[in-house]
């Protein structure tokens, strides 16, 4: 059983397109996150949801819109994709201290 699962694992798309990445956790955690890892492997938080409510929204362009239909899911929708959006996006969840991460979605914008 995969604790935090993301789909798709790889996503290649053209500039200007709109795409979504899905995330599901079966750990019963209350809090979910999206992190972005750039080409230099630097990790930075983008969003955090707690019980379906937005808690953290870092300085992310409003082309990025997270949606949490329920506590177990946090999807990331990206409008008008740009070359600079190319990165690996990680979903995570937590209850308490440590966070558990998904395997990542490698987004390549061409």
């Amino acid at each position, binding site marked *: 059983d995969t604790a935090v699962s993301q789909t798709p694992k790889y996503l290649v798309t053209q500039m200007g397109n709109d795409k979504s990445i899905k995330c599901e956790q079966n750990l019963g955690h209350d809090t979910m996150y999206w992190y972005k890892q750039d080409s230099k492997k*630097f990790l930075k938080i983008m969003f955090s949801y707690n019980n379906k409510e937005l808690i953290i929204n870092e300085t992310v362009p409003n082309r990025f819109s997270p949606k949490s239909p329920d506590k177990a899911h946090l999807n990331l929708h990206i409008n008008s994709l740009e070359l600079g959006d190319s990165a690996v996006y990680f979903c995570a969840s937590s209850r308490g201290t*440590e966070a558990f*991460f998904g395997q990542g979605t490698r987004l390549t914008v061409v």
Partner: protein
Amino acid sequence: AQSVAQPEDQVNVAEGNPLTVKCTYSVSGNPYLFWYVQYPNRGLQFLLKYITGDNLVKGSYGFEAEFNKSQTSFHLKKPSALVSDSALYFCAVTPQRGATNKLIFGTGTLLAVQP
């Protein structure tokens, strides 16, 4: 500004030798501290954490880390390195205790263990 520093981009060690991956932090208060490992094309895996209590914490795969409040450090250690330990290691902190909604990561240290 809150930050985590991993001063070494890469650490090279021979198999069987002890290893240390350094981490210092600049965060107000008493944060939670973590180490994560990332294998190639994989997600991050939790290794260990410091919350409170004994300054030496033990984690997965024989790793341990020592919390030093006066030096604001949380170095990762292992007595005897394995080739399979080769991976990218991230130190992370939460800005304040209980605020587990945000992890601040260091820039990562690539550990290369030579046979």
